[in-house]
């Protein structure tokens, strides 16, 4: 079986990471001749691509049986030269009917989570399959900080859908300056992030002076999984997040939203599932004109539930240790072998 895979695996972002992971799973299917070609959806280029991928790029077959396109739905096409045309995508929201029109052309659609499958129109759901996710971590963390309990999350460019503001709101409303706790925020722009922190401090109304619980802003994300205790991912984006999976496998008891798709691999035994509210998506930062409009819906955290989960993570040491161990034991669920087997079944059916 010859497969042509087109995806953003040369990108140094989440799309790139998921794409590389998918290539690895597909390459593990027996008797598959895999050819890959890159598509660039952003300017973030990964300079350290797995050398095996270059081998797949060097391949070229006379005839391909299956075309797999990993990209946004609006880029996907149908081509009759292939026996099967398959799309793999990530839906961050539910109900983008514009995108459904592109997906109707495809023979099969793959997604990472059941939550994303629920996000497409009913007529497409029949040919939509959740293939789960695969993730590995290099090692168990070895720099566990002993002084403060560290919550951490990735804020990036502080786009509204990261829900960083909600995380700070919950953190400020639950903890005090005297608590031996820290919230570590990874952000691209520290000045902008500090302005957001100050704004939230003022909005919650507890602090007449800037004496709020400890917040630490960092730009690099390299060692956060090794140094943090509890990863918070309550972003309004639905679907798989490799960082959440890494945190889980590092035993960092992720706090995730109910219905977000992350709750399909983070369980109550290994992390925290926070109640969510499904609501209209109001997103000022829109990467494409037919993306992230208010015709779509997304999940937002219920703030009181989020702060309760943070409190529980901080207070319940024994429960935290149990969850942490359970997370580390999730390796099999997130294995490439498992995902590879599932993809093979779907492609051959």
């Amino acid at each position, binding site marked *: 079986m010859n497969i042509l895979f*087109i995806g953003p695996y040369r990108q140094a972002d989440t799309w790139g990471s998921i794409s590389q992971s998918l290539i690895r799973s597909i390459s593990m299917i027996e008797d598959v001749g895999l050819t890959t070609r890159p598509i660039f959806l952003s300017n973030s280029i990964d300079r350290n691509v797995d050398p095996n991928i270059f081998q797949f790029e060097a391949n*070229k077959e006379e005839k391909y049986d299956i075309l797999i396109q990993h990209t946004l739905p609006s880029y996907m*096409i149908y081509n009759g030269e292939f026996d099967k045309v398959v799309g793999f995508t990530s839906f961050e929201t539910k109900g983008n009917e514009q995108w459904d029109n592109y997906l109707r052309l495809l023979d099969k659609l793959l997604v990472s989570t059941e939550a994303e499958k629920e996000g497409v129109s009913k007529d497409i759901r029949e040919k939509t399959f959740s293939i789960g996710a695969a993730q590995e971590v290099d090692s168990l963390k070895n720099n566990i900080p002993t002084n403060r309990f560290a919550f951490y999350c990735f804020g990036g460019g502080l786009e509204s859908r990261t829900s960083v503001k909600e995380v700070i709101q919950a953190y400020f409303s639950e903890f005090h300056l005297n608590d031996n706790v820290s919230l570590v925020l990874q952000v691209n722009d520290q000045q902008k992030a500090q302005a957001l922190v100050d704004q939230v401090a003022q909005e919650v109304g507890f602090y007449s002076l800037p004496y709020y619980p400890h917040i630490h802003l960092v730009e690099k994300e390299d060692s956060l999984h090794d140094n943090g205790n509890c990863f918070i991912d309550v972003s309004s984006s639905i679907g798989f997040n490799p960082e959440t999976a890494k945190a889980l496998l590092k035993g960092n008891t992720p706090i995730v939203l109910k219905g977000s798709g992350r709750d399909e691999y983070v369980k109550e035994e290994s992390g925290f599932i926070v109640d969510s509210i499904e609501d209209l998506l109001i997103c000022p930062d829109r990467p494409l004109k037919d993306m992230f409009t208010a015709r779509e819906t997304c999940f937002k955290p219920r703030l009181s539930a989020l702060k309760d989960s943070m409190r529980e993570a901080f207070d319940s040491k024994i429960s935290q240790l149990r969850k942490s161990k359970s997370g580390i034991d999730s390796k099999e669920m997130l294995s490439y072998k498992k995902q590879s087997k599932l993809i093979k079944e779907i492609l051959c059916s």
Partner: protein
Amino acid sequence: MFVMSNILRSVTRTPESRFRCISFCRENEKYISLLSKCNCDIYVVRQEGLSDWKNSISPAPDNVFVLNTDLHSCSVSYFDFVLCHGRLQEFDAANNISASLHIPLITIDHVSKRIFQKIPLHTSVNPSNYLEGRVGKVNVALSEDIKTSWTSATHGISITIPTFVGEDSFETKEDRKGFLFDNNVPSQSISPMENIFSSFNCTPRFHQDKAEKPGDFKYYINTWNNIDNKTLEAMAASCICISPKTPETEQVITHGENGLLYSGMSDLNKIMTECKSGKWDSIGSNSKEYILNNHADEKTFIDKWKKVFSYASSSFFMGN
């Protein structure tokens, strides 16, 4: 839609495929027309600041499509390459198309790094200020000298493909008129010469809807800093070609042998006066012979370009 189609095309095409190229025009009507003979269809797109296709210079061949709308509005499902005819003027736009459509960029250097068109006549610029990193996957130069001049700014594959002059350009009339000049240049380039042209009663080559034939004239004044296809055509028609003296024109014209070179306006005035007196009448046949010996090989031009397309099609895709 183009992105995925173009990537698919990069996998499924063969070296024998007929290729679809995107190009700008920018006074390259003649070269693009020649290129259209090389197993490709050419889609000419508009770009602000670059001139449109002028039919009076060369009517667009059947397989050259001058687009009035943007690329996404034309009924084409994929493209293979984007062609850039000028690293100074077109590169950014061509490179953007290359990146957004995921197709390889091929640069065609009509002039050496030393001199650029669209810069006012006799003005050279410091290329290193503008040209770092402006390279294609394949870089085609029109002469060895041009290729050598670009070596430091060329990291891709380089090849020299001399341009050619078609058979019909060699036609010459017995009874020939005086001076013909190339008026297809930016107005700032031609304004210093207007008085001279007027005093010698020179005829502009291009009109709104037609072009004069160089073979109908005895003298041809090249108003560019280099020797372009239009000048080569005039030389093929035995015109005595008068060009500005630049490192570029000196590669083709030896003063007093197969053409004339001038340095500045007073020199131009002097040379034109000498022409009128008949001093240079004997060199017209030399220019024709030069073209016959150096720029009449259509087959090699086509074969080499086919090889370029074939090589680029099998070797490159976006990202490699």
